[in-house]
């Protein structure tokens, strides 16, 4: 072993972690910039989001992390006055390409927000909703997929016996897991999580974190979080953004023990500002 390749670069939590450049790429930002009117919010972001890994975006409020996340499934299409430069690719295809069907894109790149937003329907219908929109009509198939999704979202044991109850009767943590079940029911490739646990109590937060860990075997997960310890706990890679710029992007283990950039160090050690 040489000093260039410390153990932490090769092994993480007892398993092999590839170097980021060796990872299979799922999404790519290339010189990606975003303007709200004349004000630039993202500056030439270039990064690769690896497949089947959890990537966390951290940074102070207003650094552009949620903005960048929303660009990944074109949620910003709904915002007036937004202009973009550069490319955002999903499996090599431009997300903003002319031929892209946005509904189809959002099926492939699902999103979960800070506040749980179940539909005012039964638990069952919440998860079945996306499937029906997709045109799945076989009752048996829908039931199977609902059960599968609720199991994957670690919610089945708690709600399996009361699927017809209104989703609003669930606790906040359960509602958030229901929303995640709804998102994965249609089997997206990428799951974008925008502060998914910031409105939850610590135990529900841990359940969501455990779920994220489980999900990455099948999905590419990108999570925005204000909670640095959460980023450290759940992610394989972490990107630190500051004032719309990508300051550092590295293996989470590396970023939290030995960051290269002083700005990153100041932020994660609580010296920022």
């Amino acid at each position: 072993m040489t000093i260039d390749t410390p153990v932490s670069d090769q092994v993480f939590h007892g398993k092999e972690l590839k170097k980021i450049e060796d990872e299979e790429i799922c999404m790519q930002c290339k010189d990606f910039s975003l303007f709200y009117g004349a004000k630039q919010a993202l500056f030439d972001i270039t990064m690769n989001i690896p497949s089947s890994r959890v990537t966390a975006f951290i940074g102070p409020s207003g650094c552009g992390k949620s903005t960048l996340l929303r660009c990944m499934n074109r949620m910003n299409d709904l915002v007036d006055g937004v202009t973009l430069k550069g490319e955002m690719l999903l499996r090599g295809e431009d997300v903003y390409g002319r031929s892209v069907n946005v509904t189809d894109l959002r099926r492939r790149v699902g999103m979960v927000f800070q506040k749980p937003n179940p539909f005012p329907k039964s638990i069952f219908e919440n998860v079945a909703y996306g499937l029906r929109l997709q045109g799945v009509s076989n009752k048996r198939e829908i039931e199977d997929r609902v059960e599968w999704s609720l199991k994957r979202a670690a919610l089945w044991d708690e709600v399996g016996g009361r699927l017809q109850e209104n989703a609003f009767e669930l606790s906040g943590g359960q509602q958030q897991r229901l929303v995640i079940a709804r998102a994965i029911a249609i089997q997206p490739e990428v799951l974008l999580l925008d502060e998914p646990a910031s409105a939850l109590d610590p135990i529900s937060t841990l359940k969501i974190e455990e779920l994220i860990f489980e999900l990455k075997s099948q999905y590419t997960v990108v999570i925005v979080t204000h909670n640095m310890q959460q980023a450290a706990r759940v992610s394989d890679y972490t990107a630190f953004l500051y004032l719309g710029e990508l300051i550092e992007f590295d293996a989470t283990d590396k970023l939290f023990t030995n960051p290269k950039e002083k700005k990153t160090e100041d932020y994660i050690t609580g010296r920022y500002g």
Partner: protein
Amino acid sequence: MSIQNVGQHILHQFDDDLESTRNKVLNMGGLVEKQVENSLLALVNSDSSLAEQVATSDYQVNSMEVAIDEECNHIIALRQPAAGDLRLVVAIIKTITDLERIGDEAEKIGRYAVDLATEERNEMYFSELKLLGDQVKTILRESLDAFARMDVASAFRTAATDKAINKEYDVIMRKLVKSMSEDRASVERGLKVMWCARALERIGDHAKNICEYVIFTVEGKDVRHTSFQQALAEFQEKS
């Protein structure tokens, strides 16, 4: 990570915690240094009362280790240090273990010094031990200085001097083996001198470890069990 950087947290209490723990390590270092110095004085001057005092005051060092360890646990649990702060806390935990062991070695020397004070002196051995002891005191002082200032260049320089100590130790060993094989009556005394030399050599190793923790804290690189020369070359190239 420089020493100026220990401060400046948004949460000032965190600065205070780190600073207070770091100061306690320096105090512990000072106490250990004094123990080593006294043990050597007692040894070379055949001063049995000073030797006795060294041998019985190791408990102070031990209790400091326990107290600092506890503070580090608190910092980890309550402040969740990251990056340079985390490396500093880890380095402190390791440093105090080495300091405590240096204290143990000084205690050992004290005990042998009590015995040797009652026996006939062999000036040659004592001058050799004094020479080795002076080198060991220097490496210990400089390693603690490097820690206090978080000075990587000095840590590299100081760690490299451990080689000379090992050489000096080998010289003493060879002389002892020769004299013990020639004069069987000197074996008992010779063995005690040998254990003292061994303790001094170990103190040099512990001081070297402290230098390595300084490098780890500042540079984020673990230079233990790696090519020291290569690590030094990389550091020199960078600076």
